[in-house]
């Protein structure tokens, strides 16, 4: 009895602390949203009555600054990179798991080894390569070099190794082509794999900053993080507008997360990765 009571007490304390930490985790976002709604005349007041709050900063950054264009660029680039990765990595992972061909083992180890190399090594040579092709400040420059991920190939291979082979073998004996087997048998079974890849690739690309800040040089080609950085650099006294930009960058990815949060959390738990 005594121990049960302390147990309940402990849980109540844990719950209370968990709520406090929720404020720490989400409070800064709430404060940012609140600031983004303040009218410019009151932006330096800490407290502004709720009735004065306005959506005007959002329409102002979309109309007077290229935030709309940056948003479109971000959506377009993240979309192309995500679809490209889905195709490239899934096909490669399937080949490594299921098809026999010479040098398969060696090629797989090459992909594994490349995974250890940090992307920063690539900054200079890829910049030179893309400049040579005239691809700096273009959509192809922001997307084509990023259509493959060794880690996702590894993940796809592991996934295909884990699903039963019998159906494929039966289809093969029935004379279905290798493409047919991939598209009609393997792919319909790999929805969890596709979901995890989509979420992590999209999130990683949406938040990516180092590459686009290097490769997008004119404001028309900026993605949202690059655009927000440049806007913040010039207008950092207008915290209400800057915060509207912050929310514009944050809200879409939080919505995607809330919709797919189960796959997100499972993906993190099983792979230990951040997108």
């Amino acid at each position, binding site marked *: 009895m005594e121990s049960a009571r302390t147990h309940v007490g402990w849980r109540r304390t844990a719950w209370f602390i968990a709520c406090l930490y929720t404020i720490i985790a989400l409070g800064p976002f709430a404060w940012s949203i609140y600031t983004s709604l303040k009218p410019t005349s009151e932006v330096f007041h800490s407290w502004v009555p709720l009735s004065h709050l306005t959506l005007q900063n959002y329409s102002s950054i979309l109309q007077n600054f290229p935030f709309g264009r940056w948003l479109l660029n971000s959506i377009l680039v993240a979309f192309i990179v995500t679809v490209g990765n889905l195709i490239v990595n899934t096909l490669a992972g399937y080949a490594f798991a299921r098809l026999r061909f010479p040098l398969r083992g060696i090629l797989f180890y090459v992909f594994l080894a490349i995974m250890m190399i940090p992307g920063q090594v690539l900054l200079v040579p890829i910049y030179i390569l893309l400049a040579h092709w005239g691809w700096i400040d273009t959509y192809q420059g922001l997307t084509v070099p990023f259509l493959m991920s060794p880690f996702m190939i590894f993940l796809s291979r592991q996934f295909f190794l884990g699903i039963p082979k019998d159906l494929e073998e039966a289809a093969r004996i029935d004379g279905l082509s290798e493409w047919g087997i991939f598209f009609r048998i393997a792919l319909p079974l790999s929805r969890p794999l596709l979901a995890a890849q989509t979420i992590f690739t999209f999130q990683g690309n949406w938040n990516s900053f180092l590459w686009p800040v290097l490769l997008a040089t004119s404001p028309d080609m900026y993605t949202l993080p690059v655009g927000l950085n440049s806007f*913040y650099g010039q207008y950092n006294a207008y915290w209400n507008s800057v915060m509207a930009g912050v929310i514009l960058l944050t809200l879409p990815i939080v919505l995607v997360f809330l919709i797919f949060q189960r796959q997100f959390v499972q993906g993190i738990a099983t792979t230990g990765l951040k997108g």
Partner: protein
Amino acid sequence: MSSASARTYWRRNAVEQALHGYLFLLPALTELAVFLIGPILYAFYISFFRFSFLDPQNAQFVGLRNYVHLFQDPEFLRALWNVTLYSIGVVPTQTAIALWLALLVHHIRGKSFFRVAYYIPTITSTVAVSVIFVFLFQPDGLVNHLLRPFGVPAINYFNSPMFALPAMMVMAVWSTVGQFMVIYLAGLQDIPPEIYEAAAIDGARGWTMLRHITIPLLRRTTFLVVVMSLIGTFQVFDQMYVISGGTGGPLDSTLSVVLDIFNKGFKSMQMGYASAMAFVLFAIILVLTLIQHAVLGRETD
């Protein structure tokens, strides 16, 4: 099927499989060759040259001089020192808080709500998080307001050579702790309840249980978390670039190795030198990764 035709069937099938294997791999191999292996070899090659993108004809072979010069370059050494301090500040704090949060929400009602809430800072863009933190930590910002009643004087955190880096550490912990908490929650899930029951019968309670059962069983998870966090902190760039406007200031106090590579390579156009820096960073990260593999490999055997 006669045995002869069966043999032809399997032979044809083997050829077809091999062809399709290469066909399925073709896009990935192209990407690998053009955007990974080729560039890495090229970067390694030019790291032995004095090389500027603006004037590639006059590239000059300098042997190991770029690598030697690095360790006499006060900016690079400062950057290395900064990321080391940053790692020391971030990694243990982050790991401890992640474990603490995981233990906190593991058994309580509303676990999935808290998991989602704590994870939101992690999926937010570092650029957005940086801007939010500059706002919170400015001289008349929320943090200074909250600390004033405790007699803490207002500090201009991100303009102070003393406080800028620690403020970025706080930001890093806040924004990534949710990710590591989720990994810990998965680790906790994997501990069989019988172990706790057996320990409880032996009289283990609360703190003893945590110290002698839970934490040792989570060793593998802890190792994964520490190494991932270490690698991440050594590669830090976004927040330094956004908050200092690309300079690493004030007075180089927030200059990170990647920011230094970026500035040397693309502002002063010393691309051979920047490549040498990138390979030194690569070597550091490789050592960390190999330690991870060695230890995790041994544990799973």
